[in-house]
């Protein structure tokens, strides 16, 4: 079975439907599946629910899908740095489910592992707990604590950005660009991955595969990438 497609549009062919749930990797603009996002914008698919830690910025990442009004609902932990998002949200045009960052990552991991729900302390006693089952359990020190039930995410589609892949679909990530890409990849019924380079099988060290090929249905080489930086912070070289 051939997993490699010529471009993002081809890789998404037949996978997009109005109203679907998409899990997206990335943290801020780091490790975002930008080719796939562009192709989704172009497809015109709408009423999307997107589980993604952030919502991009105005003209980059998922911000592009917000501008074209293709998103009905975001499931995110932090959505600052995006004026169009703010406008739509305040106007009631965009629904947002705020989800603690670790809960979001675990909801994706759980969904990918076939776990429909799990109990966590995160959010207990806060607005996040509203409408959720609350239960007491002993913690690791044997003391009773309050936990809330959170649901696994079973996405229709996962869109992921990797660093290198081999032709069989094994994927590696680079530095902090791994972030949500790994848990997102596992929770999609179909997972489409864009990478910077596709190598022949045998070129990646089997001990260093981050995302095994079983999770990867379709693959594209999205290079060349011009990666954006949100906050460029530097130190000065001092004279020796």
């Amino acid at each position, binding site marked *: 079975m051939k997993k490699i497609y010529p471009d993002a549009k081809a890789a998404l062919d037949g996978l997009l439907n109005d109203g679907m749930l998409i899990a997206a990797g990335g*943290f*801020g*603009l*780091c*490790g975002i599946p930008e080719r796939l996002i562009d192709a989704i914008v172009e497809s015109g698919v709408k009423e999307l629910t997107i589980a993604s*830690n952030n919502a991009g910025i105005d003209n980059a990442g998922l911000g592009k899908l917000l501008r074209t009004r293709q998103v009905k609902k975001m499931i995110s*932990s*932090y*959505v*600052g*740095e995006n004026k169009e998002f*703010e406008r739509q*949200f*305040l106007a009631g045009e965009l629904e*947002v489910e*705020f989800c*603690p*960052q*670790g*809960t*979001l*990552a*675990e909801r*994706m*991991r759980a969904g990918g592992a076939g776990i429909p729900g799990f109990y*966590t*302390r*995160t*959010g*207990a*006693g*806060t*607005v*996040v707990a509203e409408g959720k089952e609350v239960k007491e359990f002993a913690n*690791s020190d044997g003391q009773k604590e*309050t936990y809330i039930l959170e649901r696994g995410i079973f996405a229709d589609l996962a869109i992921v950005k990797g*660093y290198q892949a081999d032709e069989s679909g094994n994927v590696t*990530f*680079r*530095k*902090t*660009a*791994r*972030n*949500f*890409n*790994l*848990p997102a990849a596992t929770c999609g019924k179909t997972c489409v991955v864009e990478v910077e380079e596709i190598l022949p099988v045998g070129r990646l060290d089997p001990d260093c595969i*981050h995302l095994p090929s079983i999770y990867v249905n379709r693959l594209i080489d999205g290079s060349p990438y011009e*990666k*954006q*930086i*949100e*906050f*460029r*912070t*530097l*130190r*000065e*070289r001092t004279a020796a």
Partner: protein
Amino acid sequence: MDAQAKGWTRDQMAARAARELRDGYYVNLGIGIPTLVANNIPEGITVTLQSENGMLGIGPFPYEDEVDPDLINAGKQTVSELDRTSYFDSALSFAMIRGGHIDLAVLGAMEVSEKGDIANWMIPGKMIKGMGGAMDLVAGVKKIIVVMEHVSKGGEPKFIPECTLPLTGKNVIDMIITDLCVFQRPDHDSPFKLIELAPGVTKEEVHEKTTANYVE
């Protein structure tokens, strides 16, 4: 009295928080004053900083020719790596946090209650940006230190009987460091105790600017 001579500056508050670090600690620092703790790590001890986007061992900001868009901290700023750095995904990163493997987190706050509740993620009526990883950190990390100004810009106490803003976590704070003093409690059933005053600050002044009940 000269305002500069009394109390602690932001950097001095960070330095006071840094005195709670111990050799071998794994630590998560929030945005703002907590970030300054990294510049005040006592000599002779090794502390490993965690970034919740998937990194242990955060290095300093990069030199211009080292900048890498794939290497950022949780504040989305470019950083550098150390020789002992490791990378991982967000699920493992928060498993580390929620599983109680991080020794200490230092966070900012808008309000802290006398029962150790913290509010630091939203103000009703203002644009909600989200809680990010703050709820996971306060629920999962072994020890939580809040570093904040003692009163708000409007002069209102921030260490109060009950939080008025939506909570980030309930009964989770162990220590509060303000520009005026330090409060601490040995466990989550005990009241906070005033354990230290900043230079030039009196117990009376702290009492006057605090509505929370605490022990002296």
